[in-house]
């Protein structure tokens, strides 16, 4: 099991947080407590943990949406505090859990907003912007929906439209906060398949927060498990997802299963730690 803290590395390329602490308000306790994390480049990384463990906060912190209490975040060898907002927005895209599009906004208009960081003051859209928007619409497979208002789409299509907006941003890094939470299983797979395609074909580094451990196991290359603002375990799904770690992170008893090919790993939660259910004795 890999639960030792990551060394504070400042590699030439890559994104890492060094002894990062974050709190929302001066009177409130730390949400992230002096944690170091190195995001593997060109991989899909999932942050997992129970509610309130700080995984979303960590994601937003790495994406520069929150102010650091202490520590630093290094992107491709530079402290992100030294980058301008636009420089950062051209390297890292982030999609939040809840997104509300203004009434009547079409899919195409939404995706064009992704070009915000690439345009200069008062400049209109260039051929480059148009190409980026077209390729984002095609990648997310929503080109046929471009003229529909975002509000009229199904939840799954809406999520794809927002991902397309982040794609039009043309960033090396893509951060997503619980992109599958409100979706039915088919759309969960659709979104995750899209993310895998972006990773495998375009080499994007993807970091996401997920609640569903099986999706995390199936799609991610590396996992960070958080609890109470600390990274408790990290490594490949095989390393992290075992009964002991799940007990420590989530307070659950779970069985780890594999499919016949041995490629996919499944977590089957059977109860809370200490709850006297017949399954726990299995």
């Amino acid at each position, binding site marked *: 099991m890999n639960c030792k803290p990551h060394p504070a590395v400042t590699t030439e390329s890559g994104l890492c947080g060094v002894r990062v602490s974050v709190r929302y308000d001066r009177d409130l306790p730390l949400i992230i407590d002096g944690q170091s994390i190195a995001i593997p480049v060109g991989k899909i990384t999932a942050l997992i943990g129970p509610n309130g463990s700080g995984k979303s906060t960590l994601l937003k912190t790495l*994406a520069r*949406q929150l102010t650091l209490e202490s520590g630093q975040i290094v992107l491709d060898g530079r402290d992100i505090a030294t980058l301008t*907002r*636009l420089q*950062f*927005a*051209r390297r890292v*895209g*982030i*999609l*939040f859990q809840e*997104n*509300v*599009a*203004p*009434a*009547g*906004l*079409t899919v*195409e*208009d939404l995706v064009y*907003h*992704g070009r*915000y*960081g690439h*345009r200069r003051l*008062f400049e209109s859209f260039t051929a480059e912007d148009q190409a980026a928007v077209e390729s984002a619409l095609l990648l997310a497979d929503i080109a046929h929906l471009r*003229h*529909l*208002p975002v509000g009229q789409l199904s939840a799954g299509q809406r999520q794809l439209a927002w991902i397309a907006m982040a794609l039009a*941003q043309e960033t090396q890094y893509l951060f997503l906060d619980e992109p599958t939470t409100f979706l039915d299983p088919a759309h969960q797979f659709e979104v995750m398949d899209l993310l895998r395609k972006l990773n495998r074909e375009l080499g994007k580094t993807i970091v996401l927060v997920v609640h569903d451990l099986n999706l995390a196991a199936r799609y991610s290359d590396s996992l960070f498990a958080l609890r109470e603002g600390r990274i408790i375990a990290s490594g490949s799904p095989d390393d992290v997802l075992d009964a002991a770690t799940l007990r420590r992170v989530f307070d659950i008893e779970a069985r780890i299963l594999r499919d016949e090919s041995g490629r996919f790993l499944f977590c089957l939660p059977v109860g809370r730690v200490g709850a006297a259910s017949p399954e726990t004795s299995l």
Partner: protein
Amino acid sequence: MPTAHRRHALAGLIACSLVVAALAAFMQVMLGSYEMTWHRAWAALTDPNVWQPSVWVRLLCGEATAGMLHLPEAPALDTATLIVWNVRLPRVLAGVMVGANLAVSGSIFQAITRNELASPYLLGVSSGAGLAVLLALTVCPVFAAFLPLAAMLGGTVAFLMVYAIAWHHGTSPVRLVLAGVIIGAIAGALQTMLFFLAKDLSTVQNALSWTAGSLTGTGWQQVRLIVPWTLASVVLGLSSTRYLDVLLLGDPAASALGMNVERVRFLLAATAIMAASSAVAVSGLIGFVGLIVPHIVRTMVGSAHRHLLLGCLFAGPALLVVADVAARLAFAPVQIPVGIVTGVFGGGFFLYLMRRRRELGKL
């Protein structure tokens, strides 16, 4: 294709606004205590003695500038032409500017607060600007040219106070409106207090009609006063439509796209305050125009600001010029302040909105 549909709706809205505004303007020019037939009014409007560069410089830049440029003496004009060009037409033009300013200001405020209840009036900006103008008029008389600046100062102070009151880990539409009501009430009370402190009755009467929002007595001087601010706010508004659109996605999303949200919001607020305050300096407190025009235009052309602001630029003037026709002619020979007309009809429209839609507020 909805985009093309929206564009057609915008073209239709602009065409309708132009026709309505032109008809109302012609009524305003033709009707009144000095009676003239419609072809007499038309002849006065197209009087070749007026359509000369030197006369236009005189009207738009003032006598002083004309004197400095050593322009030839203004040609003698007949009575109808004088009444049309010196009394009735400048009032229409001032109404056009005020309508455009209020509508543009309202749509910017609605975008930056993501709140369809926002307007210069409900956010306290108009009241703050009004208080500053009244102070300038009654307590320490200043040059008329400084009135818009005094109004902007008052509007800015009021807006900052409203924001500070409403701020509690972010703002909500209802909190902002309540804070606006608070500041509006205080500014209104102070305005009334100034009436009692004023020395003579005519000042009080002027001030009273002004707080109700009136275009009575506006002439070329007022047009000259507001034109530069109208041009500036229209240019700034139309060139920042992309920022307004991205702000509607919400602060986190806008910031993730690389926007410095606080700075952009501050600059846009400054533009909206400039537009609303200069209108207040000229016409007093005309309510509901800044709330309702963006609302109507949005339902017709959608929330994309390049369409919304353009639509407001035509619909705002049309609405105000029509309202001013009613204010001036409905109870002739008595003129009522146009703010009373917009208040009655705007309030009714607001009521209709509240009844029709269960959830009102967030954009």
